[in-house]
């Protein structure tokens, strides 16, 4: 782990090297710390590592009565079936396109907003704008879906009324597959852009005022100062968040998608994770669904490592 000034914490920290003989003494002396960590240790062992053991059913035909170990092995059958199914490319495309769309729109907006907040000098207005834009973060995904459905309802929705008030024809947002991704992404921006500024504002608050003073004396305009002082300050934070985002390209938040899906928009709203839910828990195809889930996590993991490697070669802001 490099010691960089990144904005996101990560596990390993430079630690003192235990010198052979003192170790036992310290373990005995601090025995209570092991009790402190025991609940978390057991929790992760059972509820994170336990399911990892269960992944083997992806390579088996899981029969509930025989249990995980008793079920017969089938190798990569479930994977082949999934890769050759007619919906494979659709699922992959929907998942990737929603993620990339979300990244393209949802990633820059909090940055711009944070830079803009940072320039507001009126304390009251700044606080008001921040308080209000943070608020949607606390709205539950179910309420969010309910709002979207009510606002976009073709007969009574306010958005539809507003569009028609402008003399335009409003599309049927909720059922038209062409609108699903936009609806998903923009509602996400509405909900989380404000909250997303906090981390950037934290970084901006660390800018040395001396830099700005020197720049003012040199005759730099406000815009130039943002461009050459504030934005470079945010680069490490941006890089880290970008890497983390890339690591979840195939992991779009399916809780909201699940709520907004309907038979009519399925052709653009069905993503890998909602498919896993449907085939696994609704249709009880345990092994098949586990295989797809495993495919998904492996791709995510690989993406994260690859992107991190690329960033590591080109800058010093990598995750590890």
């Amino acid at each position, binding site marked *: 782990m490099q010691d960089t000034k990144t904005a996101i914490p990560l596990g390993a920290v430079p630690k003192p090297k235990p010198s052979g003989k003192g170790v036992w003494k310290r373990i005995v002396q601090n025995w*209570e710390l092991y009790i*402190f960590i025991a609940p978390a240790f057991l929790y992760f062992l059972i*509820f994170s590592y336990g399911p990892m053991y269960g992944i083997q059913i992806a390579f088996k035909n899981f029969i509930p009565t025989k249990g995980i170990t008793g079920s017969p092995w089938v190798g990569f059958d479930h994977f082949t079936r999934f890769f050759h199914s007619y919906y494979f490319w659709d699922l992959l495309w929907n998942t990737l396109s929603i993620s990339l769309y979300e990244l393209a729109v949802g990633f820059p907006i909090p940055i711009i*907003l944070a830079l803009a907040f940072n320039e507001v000098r009126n304390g009251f207005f700044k606080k008001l704008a921040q308080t209000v834009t943070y608020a949607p973060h606390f709205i539950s*995904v179910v309420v969010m879906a309910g*709002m979207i459905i009510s606002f976009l309802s073709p007969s009574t929705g306010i958005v539809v*009324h507003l569009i028609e008030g402008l003399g335009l024809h409003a599309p049927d947002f909720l059922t038209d597959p062409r609108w699903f991704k936009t609806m998903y992404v923009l509602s996400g921006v509405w909900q989380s852009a404000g909250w997303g500024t906090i981390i950037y504002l934290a970084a901006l608050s660390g800018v040395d005022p001396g830099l700005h003073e020197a720049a003012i004396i040199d005759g730099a305009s406000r815009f130039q100062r943002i461009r050459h002082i504030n934005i470079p300050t945010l680069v490490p934070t941006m890089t880290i968040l970008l890497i983390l985002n890339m690591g979840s390209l195939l992991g779009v938040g399916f*809780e909201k998608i699940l709520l907004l899906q309907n038979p009519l928009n399925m052709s653009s709203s069905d993503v890998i994770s909602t498919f896993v*839910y449907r085939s696994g828990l609704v249709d009880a195809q345990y092994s098949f669904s586990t295989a797809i*889930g495993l495919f998904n996590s492996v791709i995510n993991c690989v993406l994260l490592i690859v992107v991190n490697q690329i960033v590591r070669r080109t800058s010093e802001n990598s995750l590890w």
Partner: protein
Amino acid sequence: MLSGVKETKRDKAFLVCNYIYVFLAFAIVFYPLVYMISASISDPKFVGSGEMWLWPKGITFEGYKRVFENSNIWNGYANTILYTVVGTAINLVVTLPAAYALSRRDFVGRNFFMGMFMVTMFFGGGLVPTYLLVKQLGMINTMWAIVIPSAASIWNIIVSRTFFQSSIPKELQEAAQIDGCTNMRLFVKIILPLSMPIIAVMALFYGVGNWNSYFSALIYLNDSAKYPLQLVLRQILVLQEMAAQGGGAIDASTAAAMNSKAEIAALVKYAVIIVATVPVIVIYPFLQRYFVQGVMIGSVKG
């Protein structure tokens, strides 16, 4: 900032654009929030036709009356309070001691534990194996399926650990140990009372998460008497509406002919959104400082 230096014209223009931009962002977020409150107390006729677009029109409290008469909503509310209180208590008991142990440099094995926890950030068993495990543990259709599988989040453990590392002076621990104070006493009597900010942040983060979650209830609970509020909301807000849509496109004339039953349903929707969101939204401005602090602590590398 230097106040003596006069701003140039370009700077002023830029500043004006900036204010307009921030104001637009503010308005775009604020409008739907105001609209929902107005819609929940307006005559559904005006809401449906679009005549009510900002301030309440034809004020009625029928929506709230119906919500308060609905026993499913009350029951869901009670369940959610129970799950949130029990869940958050478990979250804190698992997170804080572990985070404290991990913050101690003299804790042998901290890198092993940290590494083991961090792996779960990047790789997991997935939906079905987790479901099968919870089922095997006999938790299906009990409160435990809601509160135990989400007992801790690695992110929150890291945030708390960072707090303990940066805000609790190491000398305190050393002095206490020289006086023969045990780790347990040290943690309960000295560390925790000094850590109120992080306890508040964690209780809020976990509490809001528990209050708003629906997915684990959806997959693990099948008895509707145990449904939390969010699942009841899903029935009212999502399923009902989607059922009407799924039947095919409704043209304007049919929609207009729909009787007041549909209007009441629409009114109830807005009222129920407000009722379900109020606890979180009302406490939020007062506790905003803590929420923001939580994110800030998380953003300082430990």
